[in-house]
């Protein structure tokens, strides 16, 4: 239960195809592999990149996670969420 575990999960989702496949098919089962607090898992599952950044997760990881996993894969949508959250 740490931001480090969040970064490990996001790193895997950014660079590993098998992680992306697993997350897309069963997010909860995939996220259970990591030492995540329930709220951390929820933020990943819900693509809450603003919330993740508020917990000091690297923006490099949140953007890579979004662009490689979010259904829209839109940088504009990504930035809109951050800006709406006042980041």
């Amino acid at each position, binding site marked *: 239960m740490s931001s480090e575990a969040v970064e*490990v999960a996001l*790193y895997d989702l950014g*660079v590993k195809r098998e992680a992306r496949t697993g997350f897309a098919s069963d997010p909860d089962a995939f996220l259970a592999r990591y030492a995540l607090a329930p709220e951390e898992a929820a933020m990943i599952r819900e693509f809450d990149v603003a919330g993740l950044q508020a917990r000091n997760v690297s*923006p*490099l*990881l*949140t*953007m*890579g996670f979004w662009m490689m996993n979010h259904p829209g894969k839109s940088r504009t949508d990504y930035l809109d969420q*951050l800006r709406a959250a006042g980041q």
Partner: protein
Amino acid sequence: MGTIVGGFVLPHEPGLFFTPREAAKPELLEVHGAYDKVRDRIGELGATTVIVVGADHYVLFGPQCLPNFLIGVGDVTGPYERFPGIGQDEIPNNRELARHILDHGRANGFDWAAAKSLRVDHSVGLPARICALPNPSVTGVIPVYLASGVEPLIPIRRAYELGGAIRAAVEASGTDERVVVIGSGGISHWVGMSRMGDHNEAFDRMVLDCVVRGDPAPLLALSDTEIVHQAGNGGLEIRNLVCAMGAMPGRTGDLIAYHDQPDWVAGLGFAEIHAAA
């Protein structure tokens, strides 16, 4: 004895290279022209080896292992990302000189991390393929990565000192290599942050002015907090530029180009550092 015959600072913004050159707008062609200038100058300098100092973007190295500074001493491929017309296969390394830089550094207080096999990202792969390898004189590209994008960061002064260690190692080598050092990094840019797309031209030009004047002091005085405030998290990559300056201490240079367009993520600065004092 090896010789550092020149240095350059340049950006590595990947978005510039997703558009095929034949489809590029005039402002993008101007940026490509700056890369061409660097390429041509490397050839005119008769460089045999190019050392590219880049930044990982949390792609090559994960949270489990984040090297402070790393050198590729074995096989090298890349870039990791696909760009139209740019290969991803082997990048010839100068293994002998790379290993010498590692050994010389470790004997003199610079404990390099080593990669025996390395697939580089755009920060090293693009300058290698666009500026270095098109020159027939260049037979090897040595990749160096600094912790300049991902926490914990290499202290900026240590990045400068590492440039000096690279220079000392090159000059202590038993070869006649003619070496160019490239510091690869955007200047102001907010990667993955809400301000992504903003630039700070005043900051960018201040950095380039320091490079051209051969004066690292104003850059070494910047705290990371100040850099992020003025130039975003991507601005932390100025460590790579500072490392190149450290390899050519006190040397002055010339501005090649500065470009700043709303569509681009970073302020794009190009400069040459001359070997002659």
